[in-house]
């Protein structure tokens, strides 16, 4: 009976831990680390939790690696009932440095020493803006495809189809950045949140398109590389969300996709 209760508790705690990890986002790909298969394992013993993360290459940028690993540590630590937390990054060129720094609670600057200047806040903000820009382009290109004559500079949030994944995704990202979400708010914005003039509008949308192509392309390649590096990890990936339907990237079978 006791054993059963413990198993049930451990199972419950594990699902709570996984849910918490689902709030951790790869800023570059704008996707939860649980969706892209970066969570290698979750082990719960009593109230002690150990999580292992993995990335598509040994040479993924260490600043993004640190953001995901430290965010994962914070998210898991906040789950009620969790006691000790170990989060480790496997197989990265900075695994030892990052895992040691995280375990010792050294923080970003304490871990990276002279390579770190202040914080990673601006990096995080840059990629939140890119995520918004990509969502904006998806919504506007969707609109242009149904109505090629639409005046992009004048489109407001109220003109976008309500309830569509692309519209909802845009509203979520605007809210995250503190941008207006009312029906009358213009959709097309510069990366800094200001509104382009009608003359600037075509270029602003083209720039947004290049951001969207970049984010989507990186997401697909990183997902693919992970499955090449860790055979079987495709089982841990969920398809890219439906809020990104435009110009889908058909993937034909590579050798070890």
């Amino acid at each position, binding site marked *: 009976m006791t054993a059963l209760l413990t198993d049930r508790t451990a199972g419950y705690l594990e699902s709570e831990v996984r849910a918490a990890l689902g709030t951790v986002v790869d800023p*570059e790909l704008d996707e939860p680390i649980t969706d892209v298969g970066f969570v290698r394992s979750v082990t719960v013993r009593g109230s002690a939790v150990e999580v292992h993360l993995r990335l*598509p*290459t*040994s*040479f*993924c*940028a*260490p*600043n*993004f690696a*640190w953001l995901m690993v430290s965010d994962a540590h914070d998210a898991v630590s906040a789950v009620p009932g969790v006691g000790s937390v170990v989060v480790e990054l496997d197989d990265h*060129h900075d695994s030892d440095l990052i895992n040691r720094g995280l375990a010792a609670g050294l923080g970003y600057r304490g871990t*990276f020493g*002279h*390579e*770190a*200047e*202040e*914080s*990673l806040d*601006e*990096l995080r903000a*840059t990629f939140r803006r*890119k995520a918004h820009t990509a969502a904006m382009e998806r919504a506007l*290109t969707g609109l*242009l495809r149904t109505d*090629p004559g639409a*005046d*992009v*500079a004048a489109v407001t949030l109220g003109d976008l189809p309500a309830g569509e994944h692309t519209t909802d995704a845009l509203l979520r990202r605007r809210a995250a950045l503190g941008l207006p979400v009312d029906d009358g708010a213009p959709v097309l914005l510069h990366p800094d949140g200001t509104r382009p003039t*009608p003359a600037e*509008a*075509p*270029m602003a*949308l*083209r*720039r947004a*398109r*290049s*951001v969207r*192509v*970049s984010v*989507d*392309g*990186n997401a*697909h*390649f990183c997902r693919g*590389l992970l499955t*090449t*590096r860790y055979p079987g990890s495709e089982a841990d990936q969920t398809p890219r969300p439906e809020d990104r339907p435009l*110009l*889908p990237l*058909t*993937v*034909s*079978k*590579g*050798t*070890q*996709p």
Partner: protein
Amino acid sequence: MYSKDGEDYYIVDAHIALWDARPENQRNVHGRQFIDCFYDYHRNLSPESEVWGYEEYLYQGGERLMRDVFVDGIVDHAIFQPARLAEFYHRGFGQTEEAFALAQAHPDRLTYNHYWDPRDGENGLTALREAAERMNLRGVKLYTADWHGESRGWKLTDPMAYRYLELSQELGIRNIHIHKGPTIRPLDRDAFDVADVDHVASDFTELNFVVEHCGLPRLEDFCWIATQEPNVFAGLAVAIPFIHTRPRYFAQIMGELTYWLGEDRILFASDYALWTPKWLVERFVDFQIPEDMTPEYAPLTTELKKKVLGLNAARLYDLDVPAHLRLPDAGETATGPRQPAAADLASV
């Protein structure tokens, strides 16, 4: 030369390497991690028929390179772009003397580009002078994410890098190929940032800056810089193999590059031995923007393909292209977006 459907293409592979990643040359675990990363790229993006075994991937040697690139590879001319990686490999990753000797033995086929690193200081400047004279350098490959003692990266705007760029200009090393890897310092900012290219391209207008991998994974930042700087070029190494597993992504990359840079500033490259050039050239000649993307992107013309596959690089390196393979000069504007009439926003 490659021929298809009555069209002849002069082919320049603008990025090849002669590397040695065998265990005896690996200095530490990073040497293994680095080549494993390359091998995963290779396995992930290659058609099944083009995949090599791991052992043969570690080292090819000159004889095999000549066969892969020229005999089987339909390439007219190829350019070495070596990476030093001295912290990962005892004798470095790119094999300088072996590649240079091969280029000397086949001057009509091969150009040897060298590298420099501003962290080598004054001694490195002297070494660059000597290398330029001995090797008759026309170009260099710079890897800003290379490790060097305590340092794990540098920027083109570092004061010492300016000294090297000044000397390059003085020595007639006109073509500066840049690989923006995951530069670690300063860690606060985006590791793949290409903003430093913008500065040096403005300050060294006599030099050509070829950004390898067309700035991937920051295609958007690269395009925005390149559209404003007439001396910034896109190298297709690592981008072009997407043509197989992710053709729609590749279509979007080509669509973006063509829109922002125009067809005169994009260079084909296989990144041999990451991939071999033959299948890439064949696929590229056959490639077209999918029909459902034509609201956003114009079709790729035969003229564009001829330029990208060889004529653009031939211009940078003064290669002697046979008269029947040339094209008249394009006369595109130097900066700003291209083909505006072909984009979906022409009516906005």
